[in-house]
């Protein structure tokens, strides 16, 4: 009897919650319950990110996704969940098509994920045994560095995680994410202004602006 690998245990726990509630999002017809299931599923996904050693991305997943995007979605649900729109049933033919589609995609993707021996885990593939990696099952890896500092510096243009990799003459043009960071921040600003413009409450006007002639406007003003 080997000792339980708690990394694997929590992985299967979070994976079960994430996948199970994702399936329940699909199967549920009630939009309010779907939003709740999606919240739990995305929170479990953040747990999976923590287990993969991506602490900053997991925290961002919790803060932006679960705390921001889903609140937005829940607001949308509350603004539109009236009467017949709370639960809208999918037709039977659509379910059959969706089942065929999902079975085909799963049968293609899941076996493909297990074809690469290097991906089977530390000590899982036979390559690992050749290279002398012990497969004791406990202590998957040494303690990880926090990733927030390398990520933040990478967004500013300095890749501290790749300092040793490249020759000296390539370091000036080292791939960093300063330009995508700027682009994405401007993109976010534009998108949020556009969303606020699209979603504003419009008053009903009988006179369209194109119908108003400048002479009319001049008559109204004192």
């Amino acid at each position, binding site marked *: 009897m080997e000792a339980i690998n708690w990394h694997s245990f929590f992985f299967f726990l979070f994976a079960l919650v994430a996948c199970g509630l994702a399936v329940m999002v699909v199967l549920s017809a009630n939009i309010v319950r*779907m939003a709740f299931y999606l919240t739990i599923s995305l929170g479990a996904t953040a747990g999976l990110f923590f287990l993969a050693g991506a602490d900053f991305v997991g925290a961002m997943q919790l803060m932006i996704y679960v705390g921001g995007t889903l609140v937005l979605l829940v607001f*949308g649900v509350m603004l539109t969940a009236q009467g017949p729109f709370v639960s809208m049933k999918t037709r039977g033919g659509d379910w059959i098509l969706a089942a065929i589609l999902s079975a085909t995609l799963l049968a293609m*993707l899941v076996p493909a994920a297990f074809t690469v021996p290097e991906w089977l885990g530390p000590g899982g593939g036979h390559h690992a045994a050749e290279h002398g990696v012990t497969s004791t099952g406990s202590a998957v890896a040494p303690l990880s560095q926090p990733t927030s500092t390398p990520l933040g510096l990478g967004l500013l243009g300095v890749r501290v995680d790749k300092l040793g990799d490249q020759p000296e003459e390539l370091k000036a043009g080292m791939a960093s994410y300063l330009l995508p960071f700027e682009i994405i921040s401007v993109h976010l600003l534009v998108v949020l202004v556009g969303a606020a413009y699209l979603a504003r409450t419009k008053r009903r006007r009988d006179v369209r602006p194109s119908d108003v002639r400048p002479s009319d406007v001049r008559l109204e003003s004192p």
Partner: protein
Amino acid sequence: MNPLTTPVGVSHFMAVGAVMFVCGVVCMAAKRNALGVLMGIELVLNGANINFVAMSSPFLSAHGRGGLGLDGQFIALFVIVLAAAEAAVALAITLNFYNNHATIDVDRADELRG
């Protein structure tokens, strides 16, 4: 082989990502509620994010070297931010459609049909 006593690898994470991706695709294809379609998009993006993060992790592959390094986590962060932006715009469009047509059934949004 007891799965609880052996360490997990990138493959297990990718299987989880595949399940979430397929759930999202089915959600997008089968739901009639526009917000349900939005939730399907969120699921698809999260399945892709799981793959990126798993590929970037040094603890999950056989040689102790993450395939993507830290780049996978950068891409995952960008995906999260873009998903937030996309949800904001799509929600605004959905609310506009609801205000104009008093329904959020995507099958009724056929005014642009040729």
